Structures are given as C-alpha cells and as structure tokens.
C-alpha cells in the first residue's frame, strides 16, 4: 500500500512538473536563436571573411555550433574576451596578427574605373561607375581588405585610422602605488 502511495505521489509530481514545463515552453517560446544574435552583436561586422566564413553572421552561427572563438582578427583580443565571457569558454590567443583599425584608400590617379572593387566591397563603401574614378567613403569603410585583391592596378592601400581630437580618448589612469616618494624604510 505504501509503495503504491509513494508511486502515486511521485507520478503526480511528475505530471504536475511536466505540465509546468510544457506550459513554460509554450509560454516563453523564443523565436530564433538568441545566442547567434548575441554572438553576432560582438563580431565587428567587417564582413571580411578572414574567419573563413562568408560574413559575420555565418561565423556567428559557426561559433554557436562549436567553432573556435579566436578567428576574428578585426574583433581583436577584446572581441575574443567578450565572446569567451558570453559563451563561458576559455580565452584563446587570436589566430592571426592583431592590426590597428584601418581603412582603404584609393589612389585616384591610378584608378581606371573597373568597378571590381565596388563589387567586392561587402558594405557598399565604394562609390564610382565604370570608367569613372572610384573613391572610398571613409566613414563607411570597415577595413576588411576585400577590395585589395580584385584591383587590377593595385591602386588601393590600407591606412591606419589617425587619432584626431574627435576620436581621441582619455587614457587609463596610471596606478602608481609603488612609486612612493616617501623614504623607503625596508
């Protein structure tokens, strides 16, 4: 009798909890995979393909499916750190050299107006037309370098973004605990 009672109680508990879980899964259903979106928000959206995927979103999906988090050079070490924090994974060194942020510049005297770079630019940051000189809209350029290889006359070069008064940042205050001007006794 007691065994039956115990089984009945357990069964009842299972039914109630199961119903609660079922209700919750319907009530709090999540559309899409929020993890991929969160990962993508961390990626720098250069769409450069240096990770081996055709854009930031495919790489975000790959990370969500278990790929390494250190394949995004434009995101830098900080990006790896933030991905590691988000996913609870270990921080790994970047698998490529970290470059300062840069933008492409077209040497307008050499440009022949072939439009190949315009087609290559993933973020529509190059303006121009066939046989007309092209130029790069600097604020839109993500520095992905995808326009470099297609250029038949090699007139595109990368330049690091110079610091100016508008994008200048205050530096982290130096913590000088050891530099005591007091007479050191020990």
């Amino acid at each position, binding site marked *: 009798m007691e065994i039956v009672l115990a089984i009945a109680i357990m069964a009842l508990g299972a039914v109630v909890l199961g119903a609660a879980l079922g209700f919750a899964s319907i009530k709090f259903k999540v559309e899409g995979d929020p993890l991929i979106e969160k990962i993508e928000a961390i990626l720098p959206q250069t769409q450069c393909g240096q990770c081996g995927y055709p854009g930031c979103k495919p790489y975000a999906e790959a990370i969500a499916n278990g790929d390494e988090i250190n394949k995004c050079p434009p995101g830098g070490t900080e990006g790896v750190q933030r991905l590691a924090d988000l996913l609870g994974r270990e921080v790994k060194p970047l698998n490529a050299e970290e470059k300062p942020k840069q933008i492409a510049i077209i040497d307008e005297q050499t440009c022949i107006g072939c439009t190949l770079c315009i087609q290559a630019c993933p973020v529509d940051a190059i303006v121009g037309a066939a046989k007309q000189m092209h130029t790069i809209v600097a604020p839109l350029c993500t520095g992905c370098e995808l326009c470099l290889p297609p250029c038949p006359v090699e007139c595109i070069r990368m330049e690091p973004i110079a610091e100016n008064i508008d994008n200048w*940042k*205050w530096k982290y205050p130096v913590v000088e605990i050891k530099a005591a001007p*007091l007479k050191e006794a020990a």
Partner: protein
Amino acid sequence: MLMNLFKCKGGVKPPTNKTQSITLPIATAPIPSRLVVPLHQSIGGTPRPIVQAGDQVLKGQLIGEADGWISAAVHAPTSGTVVEVAMHVQPHPSGLDAMCVVIAPDGRDEWIAHQPFDYANAAPEAVREYLQQSGVVGLGGAVFPTHGKLTPSKTVPMEELVINGAECEPFITCDDLLMRERAEEVVRGIGIFRDLLQPKKVLIGIEDNKPEAAAAMRAAVGALGEPFSVVVVPTLYPAGGAKQLIRVLTGKEVPAAKRSTDLGVQCFNVATAYTAWRAIAHGEPVVSRLVTVTGNVHAPRNYEVLIGTPMDELLQLATPHPDTDGIIMGGPMMGFLVPDRQVPVIKATNCLIAHDDRLFPPKPPEMPCIRCGSCAQACPHELQPFEMYWFSRAKNFGKTQEYHIFDCIECGCCSFVCPSRIPLVQYFRFAKSEIWAREREKNAADGAKARFEFKQLREEREKAEKAEKLAKAAAAQAAKKAAEAAAAAAAGEPVAEGAAAAEPVAAEASPVPVAVDPEKAAKMATIQAAMERAKAQREASQPKNTEALKSSQQKEIDEIEARRQAAHLTEAAPPAATGEKTE
C-alpha cells in the same frame, strides 16, 4: 534683495586665490607676433575655412563659416595676412593638431566695415542667426553656440533666465572684473537674451566673495531700469556650474538627459551676455575675450586678449617666475596643462595659470579606496563616485552607466576630497570616452551590417531578375520557334520560309556579339594599358633605394607626396580626364 536660496548639494571649498589678480584693472594685451586661430572653437560642426594663404584680412572679417546649426562662425582677430591654413597643436589635453588659420598681423588693427544690428526690428530667428554669424558662444568654458540656447521650448513656458556670474573656480577673476568694469553692457546683453526667451524672471547669480561685482551689477540694473534680480549666492565650488546655479537660484534640478529649457529655465554666462551686446550694438564679432593670467607670475592681471594669441606671449605680459613649468588653461579644478606653450588662446580660455610645484604640489601616491564616502558627500550631482571608480577601473562600463556616469560633470570635487588621492575624475573621463568610442563602433558595425545585408539582398534580387529575364527570353525564343514551326507548317513551304526566317534572326543576332566583342577587347586593352601605366608609374615614382629609409627621409618624402597631392587636387582637370587624354 531677499530671496529664498536653495541648497546646493555637495561641493567643496578649495582656497579661492582670487585676490591676486583683481588688484589691477583690465588691460588690453598687445597684438602678438602671429595669431593662430583654430576653426573649431565651439561645440558642434567645424567651421569651413573661407580664406587661404596670402589673403589679406581685416579685423572682424569672417574666416570660418559655421557648418550646421550647432556651430558658430570664426573671425579674424586683427588685420593682416593669412600665412597658412594648416594643422596646429590645439589647447586640448590630447595635444593633437586641428585646422587653424594663421594670420600675420599688420599692426594696424583695422576693422572691417561693421554697423549695429537693427535688433528692434528683427525677427527672433534673424537675431539668432546674426549671433551665430558673429561667433557668439558660451564663454564660461563650455563654448556651446549661444544662438542654439536662445529658442524657448515650445511646450514649457520659460520661467527663469539665470545669468551666471558666480565664477566659482579658484584663481579665475575675469567675470568679476568684467562685471565691475562693464556692468552696463553686460546688463544690456542680458536684455537681449530676455527679449528672445521671454522669461518671467531674470536672476543674476554672483558668489558672495565678489561684493564689488554684485554692487556694480545692481547699479547697472538700477540705472537701466531693468527688473533683473542680482542674487548673491554662497561661495562654494562648483556653485558656478550651470546646473548647480540653476539649482541654487530656482530649486530646479536639470538631469543629464534633459535640456534646461524643458524645465523652463536657461542659463548664460555674464561674458556671453557682454559679447552678445557688442555684436548687436556695435556689429563686433567675438574676436577677443577676457583672460585671467595668474598663478606663478609676478603681476597677475586680467587682459583683453585677441583670440589666437599664443599663450606663451600672453603669459610673458605678467612676467612668470623662472620656475614655471607649465600652463594650466582654465581653473585648477577643471583645467588642464596645455600640451605646448605656443598653443593659442581660444574662446574657451578664461584663465591661464602658470604652474609650479609650490602652488600645485605633485600628487602624493595613490592608495586603495577605503570607501570612506567623502566623494559621495562632495559630489554636487549626488553620485557614488567610489562605485563608479570601482567599475571604471575594472573597465566594466555597463555598470558605470548604471551608476549614472554621464551625469558626472567632471567638477573634480571627488578627487579633491579623496583621502586616498585617487584621480577619480580621470577614471570617469576615461570610462566616458571609452563608452563613446564603443558607441561609435557599435553604430558603425550596425551600419556595416545593414549595408552588407542590403547588398546581399540586392545581389539576390539581381540574380533573380537575371534568371527571370533569361527564362523569359528562353520562353520567348521557344514561343517564336513554335510559332515559326506552326507558320511553316501552315505555309506548307518549310524549307524556303524557314531559311528566310532564320536569316533575319541571325542577322539580328550577329551584330550583338560582334559589337560586344570589340567592346570587350577595347576594355581589356584599356585595362591592360592602365596596368602597364600603373606599373610604369609605380616604378617611376618608387625608386629602388627606398627600402631602408630613415624617419627623417620618410618624413620628407611624405611631405613631398602631400604637396604633390595638394597640387593635383587644386588642378582644374581631374586626374581621370588626364587619363583619358593619354589614351
């Protein structure tokens, strides 16, 4: 004047050090050897230069045109020749360069033709535009374009207009002297602001350590018969901050996320009122300002200084002591050491303090925070600086925003009282600029993502359209063929008709490939030629001995390169056209 004052929260009482520089009246600084006038002297858009090297300019002539509504014009401070429009070191903590107009004065100080603005018959919009054209900006140090603050809120009626003559920072006395000597013009300037904003009350706040200034202002207000109240407020740093003065005089608290007009109050500095009056009544744009020169100098004094005067030349007038090792622009609480002694005086320069270790002893070493809470008690915005410090230091910027880091006005009270001598404000500046940078990056990334997605969409669409076109063409072809076959069958003369029908098709079709082919070939040839040219150009422009350059050589080459580019840019014919010609 009896009035209920509201208590200002927090605040500190550093030694005021104001008496040194008020013994002598305002003097006019002589015209310096050269003037470096930065174009970007106010919050907002950078004015566009409208002069170039070699131009003759007159005093008050427009040299930089306002770019956008929140921007103010820049004028030549004296007559002379424009030497160059180039990048020069700025009076900015970064020590970076920005575009400046450099003028060699001719010594005649000749004014451009100017006349008073017919203010009585002008629409408010015209007055605001005129003030923008005259380069009137907030001279208390924030240099926000004044005309941008002179539009009353559409929904909230203007209650009070607060005029800031508190001048709470130690050492600075330029507003004090201005009120003492030029009270009438200040009051007339306040009248302009009053007319534009139509407030119910006008309150002029002056700290109680400036009784002469308060008396002079009262006399001027009385003489002009204006209904303004001159209110003496207790001396407490930072009671002269706009938000603090508004709080003390009206009891209203303006949070970071709101504009003061949303609460029916607006605040201007006395010096701003003065320059607004000079612009309206005399047609004189802002080409000079009062600057307190004090600190480690022999003769501290206030000078009327032309904008663009090198700070070192100005400092020499007050004879600095030989152990002076730097110049602080602004007060000792919120100012900064200028990166170079030659940087120019700008509209934001209210004070120069000669720095030495006696006046400003080097900071003792920093200790860990003991959470004593002194900073929270001193904070005029009732923040928790030690919490914000903790998170700024850990670079946990999200948390700093939860503790309202953007409500921090960087007044320095927390750093002043900290027993552990932690440079708290510095941490907050760091955190704020990092947050801004991240915000910029985030916006750029979002934009890039949107454009990338749009491009993908477009490519898909184009592909689909192309496929559709091809399908259509194929279908048309098939239909045609079917029709032909039917026609032929109907005609009963399949061979002759078929051949006749096929021929025009071929004739029609053949010109197209023929036309395409030469075009393609021409294109290929062009590209080939261009590649050759580029190669030749590269080889010509890049000599073989450029592998191991010294930095000085590289610099020289860069300069030449820059000149070359500049020359190309100024040439009428675009480079693409030259390319066409050589073909």
